[in-house]
């Protein structure tokens, strides 16, 4: 599981509640302000193309990092050692990768064609409603489970803060995100994301400093860990090299297939300002990821020193660290950061899923578009409620659906989108085949592994296997069908050659 699924320890106290209330108030004010500026489907799905590089970088960072960064990540580091970092280390590279490979082309294609979704770009590149529809279906499957696990985590956090009970916490959390997502779409989402991203970065850097102080510095923590459990600080931890490298591959190359992040490139006001995007995004991500590293190592050292008891649940690492070692104010800011991370991701998912339903699927079936703003709001509401219902079904179903997230996006979208927008040799047949292979291998592989029908060898992750098979399928089928492939549309060719 990649998100909190067990209850948090109670997080009550005047300072924590005050910060949580302030955070909710600021988010609400931004949401209301942005909602009043949402007047068209272009505003709702593409923020009216008015973002600068700073807002883009912070919003993309907030959407990329979910509550896993603050809760599940330190817990994973605590339990498997340094190998867990291979999930996050690609952040030093992946933002430049996505900028070089996709940012300019998506932004300019969006301008040329008025595109608002990632499947839109696939449909335009291959002149294929089928490819567009298939990409939308893959996105919807990935989002349903991802949304459920995120809303469950938000519900557990609200329960820990306010004692609402898990079920009510999920509904309160869903209602809060839906309030601004339905009214303001992605326009409200990105401006709340900017605030939420700033909260996440500030909270993380403060907690990292607290972790260094508590542990007596990195040297002291490492010495404690090396003396008692040297394997923890080995490069791969207990994961083994192939598993850890597989994580690096999926989370590094997979960034080229994350629709909730990539579709923010459509929102940039001036394409020339993309120059500063990787600098802002990478800086914000590195600062935010310091928490995961600091808390994971500090808690491990404190447990080995006997200062903390061994954790019953690895996901308790961050809450216990904060409650034991941080000031109530800092704990409040960090828990606001956790809520921010979850809410910003949920908002982006809601918007991408709504666009898939009211924009991409009708195009795939050649149905008339209708009033996309109105339908988009209704679809956002329906998906949010569906996600909250899934989150209520805590247990096997949520855990199972939660598997299909990052990996499914990557396996289905990276070849057709990232290679396709840069290589004129890619064909419609190659795109459809690669999306199909990515979808099929991920769904079948994860299902077989989850229910114990088939055990993959150590080091083989289904998401990595599906991604590489989809890449090879795209390249080979495109080669085989290039003679029969239709020519590119003139405007698409101009953007691809620039």
């Amino acid at each position, binding site marked *: 599981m990649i998100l909190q699924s067990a209850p948090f320890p109670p997080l009550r106290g005047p300072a924590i509640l005050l910060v949580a209330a302030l955070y909710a108030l600021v988010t609400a004010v931004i949401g209301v302000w942005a909602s009043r500026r949402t007047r068209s489907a272009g505003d709702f799905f593409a923020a009216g193309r008015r973002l600068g590089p700073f807002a883009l970088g912070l919003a993309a960072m907030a959407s990329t990092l979910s509550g896993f960064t603050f809760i599940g990540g330190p817990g994973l580091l605590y339990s498997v050692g340094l190998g867990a970092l291979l999930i996050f280390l690609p952040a030093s590279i992946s933002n430049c*990768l996505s900028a070089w490979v996709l940012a300019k082309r998506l932004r300019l294609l969006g301008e040329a064609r008025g595109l608002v979704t990632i499947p839109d770009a696939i449909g335009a590149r291959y002149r294929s409603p089928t490819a567009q529809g298939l990409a939308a279906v893959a996105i919807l499957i990935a989002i349903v489970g991802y949304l459920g696990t995120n809303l469950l985590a938000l519900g557990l956090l609200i329960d820990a803060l306010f004692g609402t009970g898990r079920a009510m916490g999920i509904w309160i959390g869903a209602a809060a995100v839906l309030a601004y997502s339905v009214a303001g779409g992605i326009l409200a989402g990105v401006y709340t994301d900017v605030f939420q991203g700033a909260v996440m970065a500030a909270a993380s850097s403060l907690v990292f400093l607290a972790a260094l102080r508590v542990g007596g510095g990195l040297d002291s923590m490492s010495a404690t860990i090396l003396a008692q459990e040297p394997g923890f600080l080995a490069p791969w931890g207990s994961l083994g090299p192939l598993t850890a490298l*597989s994580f690096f591959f999926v989370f*590094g190359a997979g960034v080229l297939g994350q629709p909730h992040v990539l579709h923010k490139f459509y929102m940039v006001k001036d394409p020339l300002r993309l120059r500063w995007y990787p600098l802002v995004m990478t800086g914000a991500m590195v600062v935010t990821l310091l928490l995961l590293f600091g808390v994971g190592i500090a808690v491990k050292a404190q447990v080995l020193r006997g200062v903390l008891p061994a954790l019953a649940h690895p996901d308790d690492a961050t809450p216990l660290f904060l409650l034991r070692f941080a000031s109530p104010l800092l704990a409040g800011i960090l828990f606001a950061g956790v809520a921010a991370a979850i809410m910003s991701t949920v908002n982006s998912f809601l918007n991408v899923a709504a666009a898939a339903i009211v924009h991409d699927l009708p195009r795939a079936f050649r149905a008339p578009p209708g009033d996309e703003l109105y339908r988009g709001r209704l679809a956002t509401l329906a998906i949010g409620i569906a996600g909250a219902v899934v989150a209520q079904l805590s247990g096997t179903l949520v855990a199972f659906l939660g598997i299909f997230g990052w990996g499914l996006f990557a396996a289905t979208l990276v070849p057709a989108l990232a290679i396709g927008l840069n290589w004129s040799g890619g064909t419609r047949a190659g795109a459809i085949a690669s999306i199909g292979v990515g979808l099929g291998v991920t769904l079948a592989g994860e299902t077989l592994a989850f229910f114990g029908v088939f055990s993959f060898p150590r080091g083989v992750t289904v998401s990595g296997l599906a991604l590489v098979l989809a890449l090879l399928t795209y390249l080979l089928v495109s080669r085989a069908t290039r003679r029969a492939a239709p020519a590119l549309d003139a405007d698409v060719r101009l953007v691809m050659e620039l």
Partner: protein
Amino acid sequence: MPGILLGALAIALAYGAAFLPGATTVAPWLMMVGIALLVCSLCLLGTRRRGGARPLALLIGLALLALVLLGGFGAALVLPPEGAAAPLLLGLPRRAALLVYGIGLLPALFLPLIYAFSFDAAVLSQAELRELRSQLADLARERTLE
């Protein structure tokens, strides 16, 4: 494109090797080479442009990236495990430090700067944007006339 194909093949072979008994030591090396090839080739593909050579700073940056990935992962695979008395490098054992600071931090210090300062030559200049918009407007006019 050959780099992407070779990188993907190396990664596929790494996964394939994991299914074979006794071949597990080869798999991480194949995966490491595949990742470096794939990532750098994707960056090169993304910066391929009509009639223009890539700026030297970009090529040096990508060569450095390949070196960092191969050197960092390679060292982590080759160097012996550290014991309790192992010397620390910036607070971490040597192999961990190479991974965390080398792969996790070093590229973050130079890649975004290379992207920003080679943007006009490697990504998009004002003149190119103006020309593209003019060509797109011409196409739109032609479509209207048709």
